[in-house]
């Protein structure tokens, strides 16, 4: 039997919470790759944040051996991130496989993401094996879910194993299906090396390490390789497999999944989706599907303590070592001092990065409201990409502004259709399509400006549908829009950190809402503070924080000056936590809450 005939490369796709990590754990356990003792629950999710949120961000592959009808098979499981922000990474992981297990929750059925990822898998010509999970729950309705899979996705689901990953029920049926139905790799060992990078990570000793699927040829220590996208060449220092711990092997051959280390300084040189070939007489054509990843959500990141700017810079650089999709450029805000404008793949990505900055690097950070990057066409023919509202040219210089658009797929029980339509309308959504998938499920398709979507659309969707609706989106390019800059003035001075680019029709409402919220959070100052929202020179909303009139007319009892002293010291401490925004003093918390202004207030 040919070596490749006994290899199966597969991944698991699922909606959040449908049990992907748990199934992966059970497979590892069942194949004896790790004993129960060696496993900490949900082994593949390595970062703390992932484990806390129960979502997988970073992929960790695992090699398993399984004996089936007297033959030993090598099963390579490539885990995939479960969030829409990481669609491209998912697609490259899928491209590294021949098959995918599609987990569907036995009570919740097909969700937006299930579908999105299934289409991605189909695009990559993967054999898809539906598996119905959580059958141990009382609310399980496996037969209906099978029907749903057939109707909605169009996949035969008759043979879908009914499992409980949590309880370990029918795990061997899943393994059997993998061996029987996932095609084996069909590469050629004799052709020049073609290895697909589906992930990479930075190791302090070995440099950037590529996680690869070998399609053709072979690679071992000493092989001179070339990155086809960047053209850079390296000498391989180590190749290996995932047990799931990284273990060096002599060589990797066509069909294998493993890693390549080659003293590469930067993860930006091990681009996900790139093809590794030989430096000399390499493959002529790269594997298809490489895309340079572009951030879609931007925000400013600043520190409450401006003197630690260099710490922030170091922290971002360290995160960047392992996350080529994170981009950042220095930015100077009048209100917040020095910081960075950072670009992310999506809101979740942004949250993860900011949380890691706080948690792993102990930084007290302030983030400005997330926004998108606009294409601004100037009257002189230039085009600017503007992600920081402050950089928007004056209206007379602007010919038109185009904003990124997203196509949204929303899955919901029918009773929430009305609420969702209303929400989408508020968010400048344009109805595209609606389809009853079955009695209990409707798919709604909307076109919406990305900027509207990132402003708490998902939260709004969840709250208006009591969490029953799910969302998936794709970017569909730019469209001209009537956008303007809304400035906020505190005591007559523009606070740049609060400027926004908004649609003209929403400017008034938004400006009103912001000044009202500011009035609530800005503590009284020693003088009256007007809060204004303006478009250009036109004030569209105003509130006033009246001057502080009473502080404490404290009694100074018999010689008890220490009591007054203590009060003074306490006030001094309090003042240290104040941020000076122009002539206004704000406690950091108030400042944060200003920046967390959201759309529907």
């Amino acid at each position, binding site marked *: 039997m040919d070596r490749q005939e006994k290899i199966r490369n597969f991944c698991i796709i699922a909606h959040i919470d449908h049990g992907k990590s748990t199934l992966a754990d059970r497979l590892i356990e069942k194949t004896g790759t790790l004993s129960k003792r060696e496993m900490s629950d949900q082994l593949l999710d390595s970062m703390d944040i992932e484990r806390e949120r129960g979502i997988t961000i970073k992929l960790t592959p695992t090699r398993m051996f399984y004996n089936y009808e007297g033959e030993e098979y090598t099963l390579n499981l490539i885990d995939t991130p479960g969030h829409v922000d990481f669609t491209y990474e998912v697609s490259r992981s899928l491209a590294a496989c021949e098959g995918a297990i599609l987990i569907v929750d036995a009570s919740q059925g097909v969700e937006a993401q299930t579908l999105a990822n299934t289409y991605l898998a189909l695009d990559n010509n993967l054999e898809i094996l539906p598996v119905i999970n959580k059958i141990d729950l009382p609310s399980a309705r496996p037969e209906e879910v099978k029907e749903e899979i057939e109707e909605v996705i169009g996949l035969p689901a008759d043979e879908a194993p009914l499992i409980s990953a949590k309880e370990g029920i029918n795990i061997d049926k899943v393994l059997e299906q993998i061996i029987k139905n996932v095609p084996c790799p069909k590469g050629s060992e004799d052709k020049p090396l073609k290895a697909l990078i589906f992930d990479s990570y930075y190791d302090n000793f070995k440099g950037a390490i590529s996680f690869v699927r070998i399609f053709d040829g072979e690679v071992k220590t000493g092989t001179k390789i070339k990155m086809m996208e960047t053209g850079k060449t390296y000498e391989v220092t180590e190749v290996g497999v995932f047990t799931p711990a990284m273990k060096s092997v002599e060589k990797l051959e066509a069909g294998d999944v493993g890693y390549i280390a080659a003293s590469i300084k930067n993860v930006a040189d091990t681009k996900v989706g790139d093809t590794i070939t030989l430096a000399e007489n390499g493959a002529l054509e790269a594997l298809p599907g490489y895309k340079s990843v572009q951030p879609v959500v931007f925000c400013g990141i600043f520190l409450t303590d401006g003197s630690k700017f260099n710490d922030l810079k170091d922290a971002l650089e360290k995160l960047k070592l392992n996350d080529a999709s994170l981009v950042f450029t220095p930015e100077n805000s009048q209100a917040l001092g020095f910081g960075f404008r950072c670009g992310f793949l999506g809101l979740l990505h942004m949250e993860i990065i900011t949380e890691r900055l706080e948690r792993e690097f102990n930084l007290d950070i302030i983030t400005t409201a997330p926004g998108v990057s606009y294409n601004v066409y100037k009257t002189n023919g230039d085009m600017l990409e503007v992600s920081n509202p402050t950089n928007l040219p004056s209206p007379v210089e602007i010919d038109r502004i185009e904003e990124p658009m997203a196509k949204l797929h929303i899955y919901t029980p029918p009773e929430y259709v009305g609420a969702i339509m209303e929400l989408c309308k508020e968010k400048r959504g344009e109805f595209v399509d609606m389809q009853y998938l079955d009695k209990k499920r409707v798919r709604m398709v909307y076109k919406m400006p990305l900027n509207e979507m990132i402003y708490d659309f998902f939260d709004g969707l969840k709250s208006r549908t009591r969490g029953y609706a799910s969302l998936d989106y794709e970017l569909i390019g730019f469209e001209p829009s009537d956008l303007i800059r809304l400035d906020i003035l505190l005591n007559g001075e523009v606070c740049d950190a609060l400027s926004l680019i908004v649609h003209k029709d929403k400017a008034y409402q938004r400006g009103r809402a912001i000044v009202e919220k500011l009035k609530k959070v800005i503590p009284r100052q*020693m*003088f009256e503070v007007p809060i204004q929202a303006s478009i250009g020179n036109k004030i569209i909303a105003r509130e006033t924080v009246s001057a*502080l*009139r*009473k*502080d*404490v*007319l*404290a*009694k*100074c*009892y*018999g*010689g*008890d*000056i*220490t009591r*007054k*002293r203590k*009060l*003074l010291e306490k*006030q*001094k401490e309090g*003042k240290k936590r104040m941020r000076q925004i122009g002539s206004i003093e704000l406690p950091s918390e108030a400042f944060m809450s200003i920046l967390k202004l959201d759309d529907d207030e």
Partner: protein
Amino acid sequence: MNKLGIYVHIPFCESKCKYCNFISGIFSQDIQKRYVSALIEEIKREKVETKVASIFFGGGTPSILTAEAIGKIMHAIKENFNLAKNAEISIECNPNSVTKEKLKSYISLGFNRISFGVQSLDDEVLMLIGRVHNKAQALQAIKLARSVGFKNINADLLLGIKENKNISNDIMELKTAGVTHISAYMLILEQDTPLFNEAKQNKIKLLSDDESVAQYEKYLKALRQNGFYRYEISNFALKDYKCKHNLNYWECGEYLGFGVSAHSYINGVRYSNTENISEYLKNSKYKNYEKLTKQEKLEELIMLGLRTKRGVSLKKLEGFGYKVLENKNALKMISLGLIKMNNTHLYITSKNFGIANQIILRLVE
């Protein structure tokens, strides 16, 4: 012109008021006796040659002690210190704990100023804050004090609790009864006092900041109309009735404090007694002390001086190298009209006394 003030702390009360977080409480007769002895011991150990310009018996409620006990303490002070001829000698009293006999004996002991914790002339307010007297008793006590010979009578008032429609009338009644000095304090809700908890649980509704300020302004007007001159943030006096003892604090003068939780300030060093009464009874000798740094002295000069109408002396500030015109915050506040300067002093404009702490904070930053 060295002056010395003496403060004697009597930490006993008939009942604890709901807003009070001072070192005071209800104690047995026995403890009161032992306390007086400890106090006398402490006084006898202190030797300072400076002439004593003022004595102040505060609390708590000094009038809770017997006249005999007050006499013993007074005697100890007179034996140990040189009293200035015109020394101001004050005692704090609760309107309901004075009798004609007590008041007479105070006079014979040399007390020439008496301070009543009137707090309010609204019986509802008095009940709300847990005072044990009422309006009639307060006015009665004041009249009694005057009848036995007190010419200098202070009334403490507490503002910011409840709306008061009779402010002008109240002030007039107090003045007619014999009050020559008024200390009007804004209520501070101190953490963990019963009043604090009641307000937190919405069991009572106190005036909002804005309402308190509005009320305060009405008091200011009524006081002015009745001839009470505001010489310090919270203190108002008829002509020639300023409280020397308190002025001494605000001018950073020296003072000795006796009794539990009392502080002394001598020669740039601040001493403090224990705040624990049983500890004090065991050993009234022990004092904590800290030598104030130059910066601390400067801060106190500003913090205390700015409480007075006159303000803080520019000369004294310069003595610390503090130049108002080179201080960014000071200049800003001058431009905002919060503080002003004349030839000799820097002072807070009367309209802005309410935010004195914020102003002081920025001057010492």
